[in-house]
């Protein structure tokens, strides 16, 4: 059975753990509340660049030693930066947790050396170029910018070649000082471990961390519902990303929103699948729900032949309008619940799957959500709640950005 523990260190760092003796491994991670929405325009991409730089060395280790010290105990380590969070994590066998955690905690206090900064800049620019070769990434970034406009949720996670090239190590150090303070970080563990030992490790490695409690511009976001067509003559397929506002992560409607997105736009057997993919009108058509701090979005993704674009956009509009007019059926809702519940169980069987759910929930809600309660919250959603949700958060019209070989396209009315 699983046990939950929680403690706050004197400097404000919170430590949480969901421990389970049946697990074969343990996952550990720092959840830093720092993402692209926390960046000033001239520092576009600094959160993600900083994530790379943490692996480049500390007072005790250079970059090669960081990688080597994780790898020599077989720890699978990585990090991700989103609009709101930077998540540093590893999974290891329980007996190797102490040495692997020593590295992870160490890199959260990086040196940010000038020469490493300049070398890593080149890697970031290569990453940006890699995504520029990917039409879906280009459309996604452009759609967020078009939808959220001046709201910081529209900021690019990677930044641009220009913003990264112009960035100075001193700017990054100032950003680090403002966001990586212990009160802005949650440390989480999930899997096989001993709480007293984990807490002692956390105290030993993190108690000297200092810093103030930063704030975030979390004013609610409302999208601008624009339309853009970007020409990319080199592409073969046309790629579209759409965004409509949805409930924020603070709202309990997020469960209904997730189920609604599953009914309308899951990759298989959803309304969009039957309207677009099954008949061969598109090779990809999905809707997903993304929650943010005081904001939320339904994202639509479409890949089709350029000639089919206008028809496919009309089909997308019809699926959204049909749901707004008539809601969803009991049978559809029951099926979506089965899908979501089963996926949550499968994900939760891996310590890293549990750690991510657990940690992000704690960062924004300061509460523990056992998997049983999460499943129960999905089970309680009714068709009436979905209908009310659609009234409150209309899916159509949505912001649409089309990318590909044709720019000659009219959005559906």
């Amino acid at each position: 059975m699983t046990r939950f523990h929680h403690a706050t260190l004197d400097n404000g760092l919170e430590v949480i753990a969901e421990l389970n003796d049946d697990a074969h491994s343990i996952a550990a991670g720092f959840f830093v509340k720092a993402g692209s929405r926390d960046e000033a325009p001239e520092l576009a991409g600094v959160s993600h660049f900083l994530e790379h730089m943490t692996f480049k060395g500390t007072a005790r280790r250079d970059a090669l030693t960081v990688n080597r010290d994780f790898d020599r105990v077989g720890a699978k380590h990585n990090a991700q930066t989103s609009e709101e969070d930077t998540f540093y994590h590893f999974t290891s066998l329980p007996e190797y947790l102490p040495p692997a955690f020593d590295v992870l905690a160490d890199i959260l206090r990086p040196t940010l050396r000038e020469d490493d900064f300049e070398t890593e800049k080149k890697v970031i620019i290569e990453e940006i170029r890699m995504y520029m070769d990917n039409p879906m990434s280009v459309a996604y970034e452009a759609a967020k910018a078009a939808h959220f406009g001046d709201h910081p949720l529209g900021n690019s996670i990677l930044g641009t070649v220009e913003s990264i090239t112009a960035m100075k190590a001193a700017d990054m150090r100032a950003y680090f000082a403002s966001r990586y303070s212990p009160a802005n970080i949650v440390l989480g563990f999930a899997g096989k471990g001993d709480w007293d030992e984990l807490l002692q490790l956390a105290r030993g490695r993190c108690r000297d961390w200092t810093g103030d409690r930063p704030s975030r511009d979390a004013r609610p976001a409302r999208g601008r519902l624009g339309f853009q067509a970007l020409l990319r003559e080199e592409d073969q397929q046309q790629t579209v990303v759409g965004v409509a506002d949805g409930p924020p992560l603070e709202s309990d409607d997020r469960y209904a929103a997730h189920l609604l997105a599953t009914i309308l736009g899951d990759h298989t057997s959803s309304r969009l699948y039957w309207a677009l993919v099954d008949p061969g009108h598109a090779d990809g058509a999905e809707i997903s729900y993304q929650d943010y701090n005081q904001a939320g979005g339904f994202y639509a993704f479409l890949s089709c032949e350029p000639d089919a674009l206008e028809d496919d956009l009309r089909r997308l509009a019809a699926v959204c309008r049909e749901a707004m007019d008539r809601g969803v059926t009991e049978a559809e809702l029951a099926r979506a619940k089965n899908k979501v519940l089963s996926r949550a169980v499968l994900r939760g069987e891996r310590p890293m799957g549990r750690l991510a759910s657990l940690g992000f929930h704690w960062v924004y809600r300061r509460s523990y959500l056992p998997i049983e309660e999460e499943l129960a919250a999905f089970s309680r959603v009714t068709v009436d709640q979905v209908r009310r949700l659609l009234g409150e958060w209309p899916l159509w019209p949505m912001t649409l950005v089309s990318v590909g070989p044709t720019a000659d396209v009219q959005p559906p009315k």
Partner: protein
Amino acid sequence: MPAATATIHQHEYQNGLTLVAEAMPGVQSASCTLLVPAGAAYEAAEGLDAGGGAATMLCEWLTRGAGDRDGRVLLEALDDLGVSHSESAQTIHASFAAATLGANLIPALEIFADVVLRPRFDEEEIEPIRSLCLQNLRSLEDDPGSKVIYELRERHFPAPWGRPAPGTAEDVARIKPQALRAFHQAAYRPNGAILGVAGAIDWPRLRDAVGELFDAWRPRPEPKLVEASAGPGRDHVTRETQQIQIAMAAPAATVAGPDYYRARAAVAILGGYSSARLFTEVREKRGLCYSVYASYEGQRERGAMLCYAGTSTERAQETLDVMLAEFHRLARRGVDLEELDTMRAGLKSSLIMAQESSMSRSGALASDWYFLGRVRPLDEIAAALDALTPESVSDYARALLKPDELTILTLGPTPLDVNFPA
């Protein structure tokens, strides 16, 4: 390394289908992977000539209605059971993978038995499938990192062993339903098929249920494949992309062969993790690219090391030069004990962590059975890894990286010079 707690069962049915299953303590889910030897390689079987992309088109057709269910009812039935599933043709196998709660596994297998044995083959589905497959090929053209690996495998492995499952636009445009039916008739056979199951299972019940569900599947002769030569060993595909894709392959040991662990060790030390040589030299020290790796691919009769990097045009030549210098250093000077220990720790940890996921386990069981005719216990793998020495791996690395056996392919605006260090 802790002792394995799982129990592995196996059964071969009269028609030749093999079931290999593992009851995993502490999980609620159960997963299955059905491998049928009906991948893209078999499109080229003697007397079949099904066309490039037939295996993929057929896989899609099978799920669009089978047994008593039309396509929609079939997918909804899987949803009702909470089944996450994927069906795809690869080079050698058609693969049907599903994961759900333990209690729903046998009902899900009933549906997959229909899919494989009793497809409806409704001809109205053909044009939508064709359109979907043609668009998938176009999307692949828009994804240079994936495209270059398909192109590399096609050049490196002797045909048909590198045949890309998405096929070619030319063939997909012309394949007739009759050819797909003939392909199904000839290639979908129980002799050679493997069903791997892992998770919360009751072995006697599973064994009996699978026996009943797949009993009507009749064995057929194995289609005959004719090998053709590989190549070219050096090539460039011109594309107006931001980055140049560099992809290389070298022949390596087979999974069942005596050098398997030496090959895995050499490939991992070269490019399998973040402190491996390619990542260290190409990315960490020089900042030349974001993505660079080496990985191992096993087939029954051959294996390969596949190696990849994507980088800007003006830095691509240096990237390729550094990669080739690392090949050379590994072949010349071998590996040291610290690297070998790191590689061992990584591989052992991955194997133990895979025990937590019924999905990865069911795939591994089916794959082990395909290559070895048995499932390797964890302690056997651990012992084989422990037996490796810097000398044994260094000797192997020397044989692995011979310049004249390397396939080198680039994709991007301009070709690169291949300069082997002296």
